[in-house]
């Protein structure tokens, strides 16, 4: 894989976006986001061919408006309860909404991921996601219950199950992805990390994350091919440390370079071996609105899947 983008160009795009966003009282941000994605996707190459992003600002806007309406409804209800009954009741309703939200979150995540994949194409063929919200709810709910009950030991199993959910349900055209990772393979490393992380003042986390990504990718398959992401803890440490200093010393202005560095890190290391009969991959269309996508964004939940 390869990434051709550079920080300067991305900074130019982001800077113009920022000005336009301010001048339109925030409305331009959907166009801004689309613009940035078009650039990032387009500069990412696999086997010499570019990825492309087909989402439109209008879709994002529609998603945001719908989610905004839901939010207004929530606000109106809590204000109404507050005024009609009192602050205690209003707090109760607020908590109720929080619970509803927790159950809703997996659905929103699925919506967001589905939107993003369905707007991503390579060689003119789109990706798609076929997981269901209720499956996500089951996976995440089980994890949220089991991890504390097992004093954290369930975490590797939970992690692999979520990865399986996201990866196994993703497709490129009619080509399915498979995931063969299992929690038990990673249990020892996880316990090791639990012991070593406090002793190394947290620095071991870089090595642990590198191990984890390496394991996850080498158990991800598409067609007859398998991915490889042979990174070491040191690589990861270098990336994150330099990123950290870029952000600190540029007071955040260097974020574009950080984005580019993160992308490059992935594309420089991610490879796959084995056979994919790309010529036989056929388009499979799927329709998806941007509701999930925008709601995740509004709630400021970063989607870090894959």
């Amino acid at each position: 894989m390869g990434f051709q983008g550079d920080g300067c160009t991305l900074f130019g795009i982001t800077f113009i976006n920022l000005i336009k966003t301010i001048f339109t009282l925030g409305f331009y941000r959907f166009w801004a986001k689309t613009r940035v994605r078009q650039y990032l996707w387009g500069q990412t190459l696999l086997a010499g061919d570019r990825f492309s992003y087909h989402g439109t600002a209008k879709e994002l806007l529609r998603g945001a408006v719908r989610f905004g309406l839901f939010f207004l409804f929530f606000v109106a209800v809590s204000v109404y309860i507050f005024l009609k009954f009192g602050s205690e009741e209003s707090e109760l309703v607020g908590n109720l909404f929080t619970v509803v939200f927790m159950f809703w979150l997996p659905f929103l995540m699925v919506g967001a991921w589905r939107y993003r994949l369905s707007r991503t194409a390579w060689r003119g063929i789109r990706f798609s996601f076929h997981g269901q919200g209720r499956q996500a709810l089951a996976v995440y709910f089980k994890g949220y219950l089991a991890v504390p009950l097992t004093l954290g030991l369930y975490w590797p199993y939970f992690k692999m199950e979520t990865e399986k959910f996201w990866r196994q349900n993703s497709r490129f055209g009619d080509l399915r992805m498979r995931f063969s990772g299992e929690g038990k393979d990673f249990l020892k490393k996880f316990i090791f990390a639990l012991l070593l992380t406090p002793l190394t003042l947290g620095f071991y986390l870089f090595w642990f994350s590198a191990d984890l990504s390496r394991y996850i990718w080498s158990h991800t398959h598409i067609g007859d091919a398998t991915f490889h992401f042979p990174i070491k803890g040191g690589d990861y440490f270098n990336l994150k440390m330099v990123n950290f200093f870029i952000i600190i010393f540029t007071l955040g202005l260097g974020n574009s370079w950080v984005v580019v560095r993160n992308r490059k890190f992935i594309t420089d290391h991610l490879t796959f071996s084995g056979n994919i009969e790309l010529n036989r991959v056929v388009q499979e269309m799927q329709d998806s609105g941007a509701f999930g996508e925008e709601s995740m964004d509004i709630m400021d939940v970063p989607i870090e899947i894959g």
Partner: protein
Amino acid sequence: MVTSKIQFSGSLFDGKNAQKKPVRIELTPYHIKLTLPGRSAVTWPYSDIRWAAETIPFHIEHQLNTPGEILETLVVEDPDFYENCRRIAPDNFSRITEIFFFNWTIFLVGVLILLFSFYVAFKIVPHYFVGQLVDKVPVEWEEKLGDAVLSAFPVEKNPDPKVMALLTDILHLLKQSKVEETPYNLKIFILQTEQINALALPGGNIIVFEGLLKIADSNEELAGVLAHEAQHIFLKHSTRGILRNLASGMLLALVLGDANAVMESAVSIAGKLNTLGFSRKMETEADMKGVELMLDAKINPQGMLSIYNKLLKKELKLEENKKNVSTSKNVKEIFSYLSTHPSAKSRLKKLEKKIKNNADKLWIPLYPNTHWNEIKPRD
């Protein structure tokens, strides 16, 4: 050096499968002509295509007018393709990465438009909607709101009964004398603090700070303060102020796209109510109507004027002190009554005029048997 040519070879993804098909390309001023081997040529008008990548490999996307959003992608690796395309194609088939021209006139006009739209969006719009809404808010809601704010203040639980009796009596007298009926049930609370201030909460609660009580020297002066605060309530000023703050806060959060902030502004109404931002207009209105209320109750309106004069003097003196010596106590902190009630001098002038115009009205001494200076809280 770019060589001028109009024919190139490239490849095409037809959006149906991932196969790369070789294609011959010819540039014309109106469209791009594509010929697949063994097929007849197709044309892509420039209006239907866009640059997806302007570096090698160049990508151009073509949206088919069929349902299902199938996209065709043309890939060209020839380094001369881009410049030749820009030369032959119309100008509006433009780059993705626009060049940003900086123009001071546009910039300044933009800033002005920006400021103006901010003003409209966060001042006028909430103002208008709240104005439409405020009269429809039921009194019970206002009372709920007022009680919630009140609970944020540690008001005196066992106030001096003599003080309370007098304050309550004055308040009742004022309410009964009001010409129009009012649904509000006025209640008074005392906050033990040296700050000189009083707050009118929505629905009828009035909080008087002890510092203010100490400054007053007569029943009439107390009546002046209470008449002013009572009018804030009758005129729904605090409800209006809160709704306005809420509306602009929510609007801002919506523009910034930050739902957490929307929630916060809605949920923590009570927390933010401490700043009941009254406008200058509201203050003057409460003054004028307050004087009318005092006259209706046959109370000498000079009471309001004299306590305001005292407050103004005290404020000026404190400010002077602050200039000379660095006083330990923050002036603003102690003295928020007139400073939250802006431009005290012009208010006093208006008040004097109003009282002068009503000099022919009759008034009688207020509770001549109770002397405020004998019962008021002491240091």
